[in-house]
């Protein structure tokens, strides 16, 4: 089936998008499958920094005027669709691009699905698999109408299966042929009276750190966060948090781990005061080794931990800090 993957080149995260989509295609498409990459961008793209999986046989580059007007991106994708008529269109996991998947499918009378983990073509049906019920259950859906527009689940940048070739540079090919496509993608933006952009100063490294301390509401209060910052720093790790912690503004949103935040895969994750709701555990379950500290013996977090302490979080954290200080 003719397949394309669609990247938003207007943001710095294009490298992460490419990595996610590469890994998704490697996991879900046979070696012989050929996939086009469509990059929509309002800026120049440095192709030397982006890796493309062996599936990618062609890159189509479309210039758009704006970074943020979804209607313009939709128009460009539909114009490109009319030219190439792909049957499967794969979008990244970020909310802006997953929104494009839904709206493009709607306009083309196709089907859409957000957060897809796996796809297969079985008995003339295109079937997708995704998490539902807040990451507690897995659902399989038949997508009824072509084109099938899917946005992939978060976390494909941390593939642990053998099929991942993320670190195998030889498996990646040289830059495929890049074709610049020019369309009149302008849409009416009269409804936008003015706009400004600001780049968020994201905490570097939470996504790539080998050690992460993840705190939950069980730590008690905002004032206690500094204790866990100290613990993370002594372990040369980074501090992340569950949704209740960031929703209470104890920590910034950029530190959120879980279904609506970062999916991490460190060597060591120490989850402290986290109950273990499925929407959080999906964010740490790819960690190599998980230590859970919680005073509630029944907390679900213990089910995904390798080692656990059932005790007061602050007492354990303080004792660990003393030990780590003694080490220095």
């Amino acid at each position, binding site marked *: 089936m003719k397949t394309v993957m669609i990247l938003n080149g207007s943001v710095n995260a294009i490298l992460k998008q490419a990595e996610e989509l590469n890994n998704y295609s490697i996991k879900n498409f046979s070696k012989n499958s050929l996939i086009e990459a469509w990059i929509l961008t309002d800026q120049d793209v440095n192709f030397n920094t982006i890796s493309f999986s062996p599936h990618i046989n062609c890159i189509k580059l479309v210039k758009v005027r704006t970074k943020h007007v979804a209607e313009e991106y939709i128009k460009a994708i539909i114009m490109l669709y009319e030219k190439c008529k792909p049957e499967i269109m794969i979008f990244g996991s970020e909310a802006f691009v997953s929104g494009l998947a839904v709206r493009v499918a709607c306009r083309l009378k196709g089907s859409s699905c957000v957060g897809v983990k796996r796809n297969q073509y079985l008995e003339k049906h295109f079937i997708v698999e995704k998490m539902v019920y807040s990451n507690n259950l897995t659902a399989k859906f038949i997508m009824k109408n072509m084109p099938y527009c899917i946005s992939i689940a978060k976390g494909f940048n941390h593939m642990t299966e053998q099929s991942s070739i993320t670190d195998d540079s030889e498996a990646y090919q040289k830059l495929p042929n890049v074709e610049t496509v020019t369309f009149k993608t302008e849409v009416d933006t009269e409804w*936008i009276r003015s706009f400004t952009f600001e780049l968020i100063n994201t905490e570097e490294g939470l996504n790539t750190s080998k050690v992460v301390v993840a705190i939950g509401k069980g730590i008690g209060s905002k004032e206690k966060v500094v204790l866990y910052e100290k613990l993370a720093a002594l372990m040369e790790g980074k501090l992340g948090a569950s949704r209740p912690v960031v929703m209470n503004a104890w920590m910034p949103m950029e530190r959120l781990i879980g279904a609506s935040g970062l999916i991490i895969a460190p060597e060591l994750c120490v989850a402290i005061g986290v109950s273990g709701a499925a929407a959080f555990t999906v964010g740490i379950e790819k960690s190599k080794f998980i230590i859970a500290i919680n005073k509630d013996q029944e907390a679900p977090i213990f089910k995904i931990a390798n080692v656990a302490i059932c005790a007061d979080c602050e007492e354990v954290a303080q004792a660990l800090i003393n030990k780590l200080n003694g080490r220095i």
Partner: protein
Amino acid sequence: MNILVCFKNVPDLDALSVNDWLIEDHFQVDTSYVRTMLNPYDESALELTLKLGDAEKNDDFKLTALTVGTSHLDKVLKTLYALKYDLGVRLDCKSDIRFNPCFVSRMICNYVKNIKNHQVIILGSQSNVGDNAKTPLLVAEGLGIPCITSVIGIKLAEQKDCLSITSKIDDLIIEQIVKAPFVLAVGDVPTSYIRVPTLKDRIQYKEKEIKVFTLEDLEIKENDVEEENDTQLIELSYEKNGRNCVFIQGHHSSEKANVLYKEYLMERIK
């Protein structure tokens, strides 16, 4: 300005234990014994809109709260009345719409087109059970109006019929002054828990009528429910690959921490 906030009441799925996840006929999961709550994204949408109302003194500023489902949702709408929502609307529906955002969005669109127009329609980005993350986008498409996703802030703007919207795309924060009509999909907004109504207001608005509209009122046929859907659920399963957790024993916290450090932590943080 006329604002419509669409919300969903959802079961607190965190309250279910491993043994509670039983898949019954027609892919049903019994969650009736856990408490229900406002979907967190919708809760943020409802509270952000109330804050707009706090700041707006114009009498033309009207807030409507809308939900889809059966009469058990009326008590939630009454609470929203007590919080000064001007109108509570329920689109009556008994069908299984968990994985059918196409149908839900059609109901909302038909309400806006046929019954009462609204300049701004605000919804949460996603809600549990279905986790479809499609409804706000499909509402925008159904009405042919723009949609801003991952909204984290809504403020009044000086220009007529305009709002100041803050949203996110990856590591970009975008502030825009936008003119209605448009749809907003609210994302993660810190400290946006909905306020609690006073007892006096609860009593005062207890009898206020909820506007209920049937599928017929919306000019939708019952048979359209499944036809409308662009996907078909064929399997629902529960699988958890847990780890064999070793609990560290000890008389007190520092003793347990000592064992953790020596046996598990030290070698991993060299």
